[in-house]
């Protein structure tokens, strides 16, 4: 491989190519470590990836990701801000449940403020908060499947779990678009893991609720803090069908070309699927949350 020629050729075609590269020092370090620690086999891949980076993502990608994140945080924040003080939660959640949803609400509102700040610091205007319909009826009365989301605690719990699990998948789907911006990537991942903590706790709450109310039809299967195959553990119509799209794809057991159940250890389908959460694209997420946006 003739690096000298490659660099010259690229410079000839695009004199500004090196300007366009983010100063990813660790990527550059790889080429500095000529004392033998770089596996030669790794170099072409890294070289190709690095140049691909220069053309692959633009600053507008970063803002677009942040506006999308803000949209989802608006959705969650509004759901909890409106829902926590209403009868579903207040009458049925108990002290621990109220405290948990209050904490989650506060986090989501903080996330809204945070993303607005980041977007503004990048020179863009944060999108305005949409109008939401948490029955999932797009503003049309009695059409949405989640009627009584604020008065029926079981419905509130189902929507909460779904929003949190979907938020995790949404952030995950955007991480690649942030690969050139270390700061925003790291920030997004640090929000993403908090949403996963929320999801874990809400799932535990749903499991406890199912046990306490002896309701194994709505609280279906074995509810865990993680997702087994593509099971929503929301077992009753119309909720079941309404949320399945948010869980489809989670049954995947092939990661990076490796079939998880073939690895040493004889993993079950549940474990193989639960050990990796799956991304959703922006388009997929927008389609799933569309019924909530008037």
């Amino acid at each position, binding site marked *: 491989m003739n*690096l*000298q020629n490659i660099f*010259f050729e690229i*410079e000839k075609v695009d004199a500004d190519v*090196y*300007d366009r*590269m983010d*100063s990813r*020092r*660790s*990527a550059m*370090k*790889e*080429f*500095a470590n*000529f*004392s033998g*620690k*770089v596996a030669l086999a*790794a170099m072409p891949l890294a070289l190709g*990836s690095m140049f691909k*980076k220069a053309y692959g993502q633009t600053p507008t990608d970063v803002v677009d990701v942040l506006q999308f994140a803000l949209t989802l945080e608006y959705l969650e924040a509004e759901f909890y801000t409106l829902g926590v003080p209403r009868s579903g939660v207040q009458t049925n959640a108990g002290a*621990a449940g109220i405290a*948990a949803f209050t*904490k989650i609400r506060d*986090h989501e509102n*903080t*996330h809204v403020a*945070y993303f607005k700040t980041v977007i503004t610091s990048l020179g863009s205007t944060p999108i305005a908060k949409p109008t939401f319909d948490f029955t999932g009826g797009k503003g049309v009365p009695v059409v949405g499947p989640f009627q009584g989301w604020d008065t029926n605690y079981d419905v509130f719990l189902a929507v909460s779990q779904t929003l949190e699990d979907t938020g995790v998948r949404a952030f*995950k789907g955007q*991480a690649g678009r942030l*690969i050139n911006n*270390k700061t925003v990537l*790291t920030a997004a*991942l*640090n*929000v*993403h*893991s*908090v*949403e*996963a*903590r929320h999801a*874990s*706790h809400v799932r535990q709450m749903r499991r406890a609720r199912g046990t306490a109310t002896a309701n194994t039809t709505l609280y279906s299967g074995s509810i865990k*803090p*993680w997702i087994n195959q593509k099971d929503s553990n929301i077992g009753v119509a119309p909720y079941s069908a309404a949320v399945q799209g948010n869980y489809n794809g989670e049954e995947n057991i092939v*990661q*990076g070309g*490796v079939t*998880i159940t073939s*690895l040493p*250890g004889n*993993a*079950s389908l549940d*474990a193989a699927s*639960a*050990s*990796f*959460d799956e991304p959703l694209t922006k388009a997929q997420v927008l389609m799933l949350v569309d019924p909530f946006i008037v």
Partner: protein
Amino acid sequence: MKRQMSSPPLQDEKLISSFGIQRRNMLKFFGASAAVVALGTACSKNNNDDNNPADTGVFLGAGDFQILNFAYALEQLEAAFYIQVVTAANFTTLFPTLEQTYMNDIRDHEVIHREFFKAALGSNAIQGLTPNFSSIDFTSRLGILNAAKAFEDTGVSAYNGAAQYIIDINYLGLAGKIVSVEARHAALIRDLISNGTFADELDTNAKDIEKTPTAVVDIANTFLTTKISKRGLPA
């Protein structure tokens, strides 16, 4: 906080200038500003180059292999911990049934993560590491849960802090798929210790707080007989 500039060692500088690239572009290429070129200078303490003879731990490799081996090392540690917990004679007396189910599930996940990285790395994988759990109290439920909490929270902060150094977008995607599962674990363990504490150590923007790879290696090494080297780690 501005990061310390580093430069390629002197021998490599000669190699690079032989390419004949315009100096300005070469400097951008190596991430140094045009005004600061320190040829062959000693690197700062925070620059984990290979010049520390005292660091004889297992070398993680370079580029993405380094980050994947970093993750592989952590998953080895977590898997070993949970295997020890669930196979211990006292397991079924220390933990109620539901918690036994959870701990077995987590064990399954960590073993999968470990085996996945091993398979993905192939001949680039580091060796199996021998853990040192002598500082952990395995005689009580809370002793075990507090150790689990440390492993899981550290795992989350490790993935979140290392992701920025991943070059291949596919590996970034895989790291992303795993970190949220570790966060689910972390939240559960915290709730088993004290219900409601699932997300209690966040920054003022309600975000998890990442750790640098070297900080994580320092923590991991306190639980390892076979130490990991920090040579070449980006931060």
